[in-house]
């Protein structure tokens, strides 16, 4: 019985082991700061355009959709509140994390996967470097640091998108909109909006790395790992979001 659970449990166990090693390496020499910076650039700066675009459109669409509902109660002036609270606490972290999961978990998995199947990871070990230290820890650090920043950017651009719609199509004033945005946000909401991407970044990067360095079966295997990394990390984004929302709701 429960034989079917054996493989997933073993995977989870290996994954946790990798996470523990990657974390422990933060406190152990040698440190590859160059790689951390390069990854921060690739993950953070590289994802900026798509994150801003998505954030902006989400804010605008939300304002549009909500204005109609709010109008029936004569409350279309509150569009700022709705846009900001939804973005900061829920939509911003989830959307940004999903985008980064799609863009970077796949990138990491395919890069490390190709390195694995062409024996570059073995070569690294043979030449005196720990692949977790050299490859996994920098990516984990970079993404865990950058994802909250990206989320803040997405949130802000989303609010601007909502503001443009509110101003142009709904007819609220700028002051009304931004006052609403400011007033509705509680300290917990902002905290929630920053903690979620922190966890997401940690998990997305490690899922990408895990599927990358466990790749087998040549180029085909790289494709498989890449797909798996995106699917698994996306699911984790939703699971983490649910958990953390539950915690913050009860706070």
């Amino acid at each position, binding site marked *: 019985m429960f034989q079917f659970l054996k493989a997933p449990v073993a995977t989870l166990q290996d994954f946790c082991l990798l996470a523990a090693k990657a974390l422990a390496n933060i406190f152990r020499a040698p440190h590859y700061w160059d790689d951390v910076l390069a990854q921060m650039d690739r993950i953070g700066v590289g994802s900026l355009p798509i994150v801003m675009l998505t954030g902006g459109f989400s804010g605008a669409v939300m304002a549009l959709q909500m204005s109609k509902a709010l109008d029936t109660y004569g409350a279309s002036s509150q569009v700022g509140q709705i846009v900001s609270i939804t973005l900061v606490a829920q939509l911003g972290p989830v959307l940004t994390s999903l985008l980064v999961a799609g863009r970077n978990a796949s990138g990491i998995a395919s890069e490390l996967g*190709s*390195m694995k199947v*062409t*024996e*570059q990871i*073995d*070569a*690294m*070990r*043979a*030449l*005196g*470097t*720990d692949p977790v230290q050299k490859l996994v820890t920098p990516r984990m650090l970079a993404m865990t640091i950058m994802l909250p920043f990206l989320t803040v950017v997405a949130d802000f651009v989303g609010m601007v998108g909502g503001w443009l719609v509110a101003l142009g199509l709904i007819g609220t004033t700028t002051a009304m909109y931004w006052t609403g945005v400011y007033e509705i946000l509680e300290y917990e909401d902002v905290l929630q909006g920053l903690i979620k991407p922190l966890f997401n970044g940690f998990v997305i990067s490690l899922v990408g790395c895990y599927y990358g360095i466990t790749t087998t079966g040549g180029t085909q295997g790289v494709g498989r790992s890449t797909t798996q990394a995106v699917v698994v990390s996306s699911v984790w984004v939703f699971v983490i979001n649910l958990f953390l929302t539950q915690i913050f709701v009860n706070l």
Partner: protein
Amino acid sequence: MPVPESILRFEQVVVTYDGVDVLDNVTFTLTAGETRVILGAAGAGKTVLMKTALGLIHPDQGKVSLFNQEITGLREQELFAIRAQVGMLFQESALFDSMTIAENVAYPLFNQAGSQVSREDALARVESILKDVELEHTLDKFPSELSGGMRRRVGIARANVTNPKLVFYDSPTAGLDPITANNIMSLVIKQRDQRNTTTVIVSHRLQDGAMMANYRFNSKTGKIERQVHTAELDQRTKFMVMQKGRIVFEGTEDELHASRDPYVGKFVLQAKSA
């Protein structure tokens, strides 16, 4: 006569993947200064054997010792110190895509345990060894810009840049045209004879083994030269034939040609017709 120092020893080593013994009770000893040629068809376990020797793969049973130190059961951090004395050319070179040729070759100088090299010394060393493999003009190129044969040459340079006592070459001629393959073999022999390194070479071609056994680098002419095949020369190179994870033959070139084993016979025959 002093007993030659044991460089690498396998004792009843078993490596199992998915219930299949990829290395099946492998036992052999490699002594200092020896050349070992490992022959075998694809999937025979040659690569797994080399990686096990370096501690990159942990055996399921048996013992592996490098330089008289048992490495089975050592942790990765402890293995780094031992691996620093070993060079390896991987099957498809395994150069780091994201680094230039110079950075690739310098990598062991900067990363291997106990290696303390200044930037200038490293660059000088990299330049000189790349010159050895006739690639001094590729320093700032990336591996993707080089041909397969050139990448192998960079791999040979990277494997030898730290002057290791023991060097492994995994199928250095696989997938190359005969002329490039011969060129690669000359470079392997040159690296071996310049520093008298103990050399293990994997191949599926018997003629690579014959070259290792019968050619020597002449530092005066800068060329490799065919030697007279004396009994003494014959002793310097040992051949090993692997089949499905087992060593089915171990002995000198003369013994290889005299072998009555049908599988070994096939190898010898195939080489003669080629």
